[in-house]
């Protein structure tokens, strides 16, 4: 398993995942910098992503869409906030309307990726943050089927189950 650490802060609505990759930093950076490689991992196999444009310079807006099994397109975008190739990328990410234009009513998160040499390979840390719980739930419900948020009972659920991370 290449995931070496996962930190979740429910109060700060932040997930930080640390990954050890058997590749140079330059090679690992290409996973983000080359849209054809990005397309192969961003969406799950059932919702493959297609990047319409992809320019990793500060201020640039990157547009992509994910295609559902029913052939519907769901547009998303990144806005590049900071880039220091091949070590750091910081973007805001959100959703678009059916023409790909950013939809201000849909939630916007931020994502920070850092890469560094580690043990002859690369350590990559991806930090994903959401402004509100509702935003995070909405993002998870949209086109990302690998983890679905389930409806929750309140106290019964706590008493019946084991809290997360236990």
């Amino acid at each position, binding site marked *: 398993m290449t995931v070496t650490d996962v*930190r*979740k802060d429910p109060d700060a609505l*932040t997930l930080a*995942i640390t990954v050890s990759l058997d590749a140079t930093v330059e090679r690992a950076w290409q996973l983000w910098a080359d849209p054809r490689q990005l397309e192969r991992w961003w969406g799950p196999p059932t919702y493959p992503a297609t990047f319409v444009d992809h320019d990793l310079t500060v201020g640039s807006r990157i547009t992509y869409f994910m295609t559902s099994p029913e052939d519907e397109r769901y547009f998303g975008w990144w806005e590049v906030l900071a880039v220091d190739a091949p070590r750091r990328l910081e973007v805001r990410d959100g959703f678009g309307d059916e023409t790909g234009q950013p939809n201000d009513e849909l939630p916007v998160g931020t994502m*920070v990726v850092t890469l560094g040499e580690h043990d002859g390979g690369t350590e990559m840390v991806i930090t994903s*943050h959401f402004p509100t719980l509702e935003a995070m739930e909405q993002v998870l419900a949209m086109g990302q089927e690998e983890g679905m948020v389930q409806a929750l009972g309140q106290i019964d659920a706590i008493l019946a189950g084991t809290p997360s*991370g236990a």
Partner: protein
Amino acid sequence: MLIYNHMVVDSAEAERTDRLFHALADATRRDIVVRTLEGEHSVSALARRYPMSFAAVQKHVAVLEGAGLVSKRRQGREQLVRGEVDAVRRASQALDALEAVWRGRVDRMTEILTDPHGGTEP
């Protein structure tokens, strides 16, 4: 950009779980959680419901607050208590779901890196 102030590490998560179960191991505290999930209650209103002192109820509320099950806010001279179980559980579940998304992505990244064709389409 500063994204988070305090990271929860695994041991901290275990402590959170301990606090949660300890907080819920008492019938009065469970009752307070249920009541405050239905609506905000002042500590003094809660204290009238139980055969114990105001200070004892306040202590129960503090334990619940420490476990993230209720939150307190001050309004005038009163302290109002609100149940937070739902928010805490929802946040934890959403983060679990997000972790699953990223684990899937990392698996696919690893496949691309081990692909003899490198970055080209399969």
